[in-house]
């Protein structure tokens, strides 16, 4: 990112805060991975390692009343929206204090009070939901915006098409992010779609598209700001493709041998935390001491979270039966 632009467009405190969330995400996810390796977590562990700048960037760009509809590599967005490391660990451990009280696992985190639409594993299912949330805002004349995210893989699903088409026809206040990390599980982009840039998908809907460096948190943030501004002003949806790379396996059991090592080497140089530090240094907003301080802080917070998660109680069997239906006190009103 051009330093002058960043200096002009992003407040130092905001950029520092993004840096903090990048670090918090990395540290938390590394810690969760360690728990997984110790056999403490069962099931899938999907991390955003190498891609943290995308959720941190877009979630930093929204306003309090806006809504996010994330997917499975958006830890930074959960954290910014107020999900605590403790809740994340509790969720992974199936504890009652997790956002789904043990009912669901890993990053299936939703909480409308904190403006987060919970997602299902079925990829791209979150996109029509996001469009519908935006429709609600439009119908009510509220100036709220929805930001949704999908992987490159998810864009091949029919629900992607139906959601973007509907959002575009109705000019809904929703911004579609795409985390293009070049793979869907083991499948490279070339076997997923006939185009090089996922953003070309947006042409089918006459939706303005943009490609940004997904490893540059400032770039993601500014692109999000622009698109959110347009959406809020009634300009309809935007599609933002964030070029990035998945640095871990698909899930932590996957060694990702199918990814060429050189590709990983190349992208290691573009690590989003590294990039953010370079930027902060160049702008004179922070130095090594400051980075170290953040490091220490997030470590403490993550450890406190692990402790919270571990000490939280598991749910009890009969809780299975609770909460299939919302209660219908409303019906008699």
């Amino acid at each position, binding site marked *: 990112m051009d330093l002058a632009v960043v200096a002009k467009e992003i407040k130092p405190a905001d950029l520092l805060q993004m840096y903090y969330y990048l670090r918090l995400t990395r540290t938390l996810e590394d810690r969760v991975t360690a728990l997984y390796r110790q056999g403490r977590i069962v099931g899938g562990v999907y991390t955003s390692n190498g891609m943290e700048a995308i959720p941190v960037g877009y979630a930093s760009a929204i306003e309090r009343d806006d809504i996010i509809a994330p997917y499975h590599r958006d830890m930074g967005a959960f954290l910014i929206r107020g999900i605590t490391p403790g809740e994340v660990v509790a969720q992974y451990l199936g504890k009652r204090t997790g*956002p789904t009280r043990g009912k669901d696992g890993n990053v299936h985190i939703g909480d409308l009070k904190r403006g987060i639409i919970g997602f299902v594993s079925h990829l791209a299912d979150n996109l029509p939901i996001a469009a519908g949330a935006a429709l609600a805002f439009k119908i009510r004349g509220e100036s709220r915006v929805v930001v949704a995210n999908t992987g490159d893989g998810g864009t091949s699903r029919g629900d992607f098409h139906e959601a973007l088409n509907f959002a575009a026809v109705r000019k809904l206040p929703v911004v579609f992010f795409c985390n293009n990390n070049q793979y869907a599980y083991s499948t490279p982009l070339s076997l997923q779609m006939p185009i090089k840039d996922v953003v070309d998908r947006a042409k089918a809907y006459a939706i303005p598209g943009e490609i940004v460096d997904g490893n540059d948190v400032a770039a993601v943030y500014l692109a999000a700001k622009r698109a959110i501004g347009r959406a809020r002003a009634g300009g309809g949806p935007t599609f933002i493709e964030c070029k990035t790379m998945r640095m871990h396996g698909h899930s932590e059991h996957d060694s990702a041998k199918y990814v060429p090592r050189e590709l990983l080497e190349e992208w290691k140089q573009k690590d989003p935390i590294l990039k953010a530090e370079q930027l902060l240094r160049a702008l004179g907003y922070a130095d090594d001491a400051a980075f170290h301080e953040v490091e220490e802080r997030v470590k403490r917070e993550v450890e406190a979270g692990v402790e919270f998660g571990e000490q939280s109680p598991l749910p009890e069997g009969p809780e299975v039966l609770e909460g299939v239906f919302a209660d219908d006190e409303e*019906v008699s009103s």
Partner: protein
Amino acid sequence: MTTATAGREVTYLEAISEALDEEMTRDERVFIMGEDIGPYGGAFRITEGFQKKYGEWRVLDTPLAESGFVGAAIGAAMMGMRPVVEMQFADFISCAFDQIVEVAGTSYYRWRASVPMVIRAPYGGGVHGGPFHSECPEGWFFHSPGLKLVAPSTPYDAKGLLKAAIRDPNPVIYFEHKFLYRRVKAVLPSEDYIVPIGKGDVKRVGTDISVITYGAMVHLALEAADLLAKDGINLEVVDLRSLIPLDQELIYESVRKTSKAIVLHEDNKTGGIGAEIAARLAEDCFDCLDGPIIRIAPPDTPIPFSAPLEEFFLPKITDVVTAAKKLASY
């Protein structure tokens, strides 16, 4: 609230239309979406005039994309709206299956997001619609946790259940039977009312055999009951009205009284709702049964188009009569 048609006889179709209209007036959060429901008023003209009255943003014509607009309804419901979506024919609900069962059905359970939406599904045969304009898809959703299902058989129930469905904080699939649209009529109360979800209704009190059914088949059962009465066999007709939650108590009460049960529906037999009812009776009312539980339902084929085929496929009055006579002999 008094309705426009107070005192006048209305059809099942008009009852649906009235319920929608009144709820849209009563509650700003209610809006409707679907294919051709705007200026055209819907394939069955249930929303005729609605767009003029409520505007383009509360009566939305959608692209031809069931998964997309059901998903959008879910999202809007999560944001506090009360969407009612129309399937042009219930048959197309298969296109939105994933959103309904995986998202709508599980969100409250997993993360406490209630999804107060209604899917209107014009379903059922007897209208020579062929395999894709006559389906009874309720069996699939009967086996999908987190959804409520209702299937009225009369104008009164049609209106009251749709209002209850719209006011319910959960996703409700409202199965409206196309065959009944213009074939059943009734004078409805002038004041606002609902028919509570989860409560069945004994449409004919009897003593000898319980016929447990719903939708268009209620009328078939009532006709059979009239015939059988002449032979001294006295049927009780239990109209489920709600499929989920099922009014198990009402079913058990009836069968405890009659000791004999016929379960009747229009959906395919294997794995249908009748199987569940028979299974529950076989488990919980075993000691009170004086004969086998007979299910009457179409064979396990798509519903065919040609008249003689469709007639063969659908349950007939004679099927009920034959089954009742068999049971009476136990």
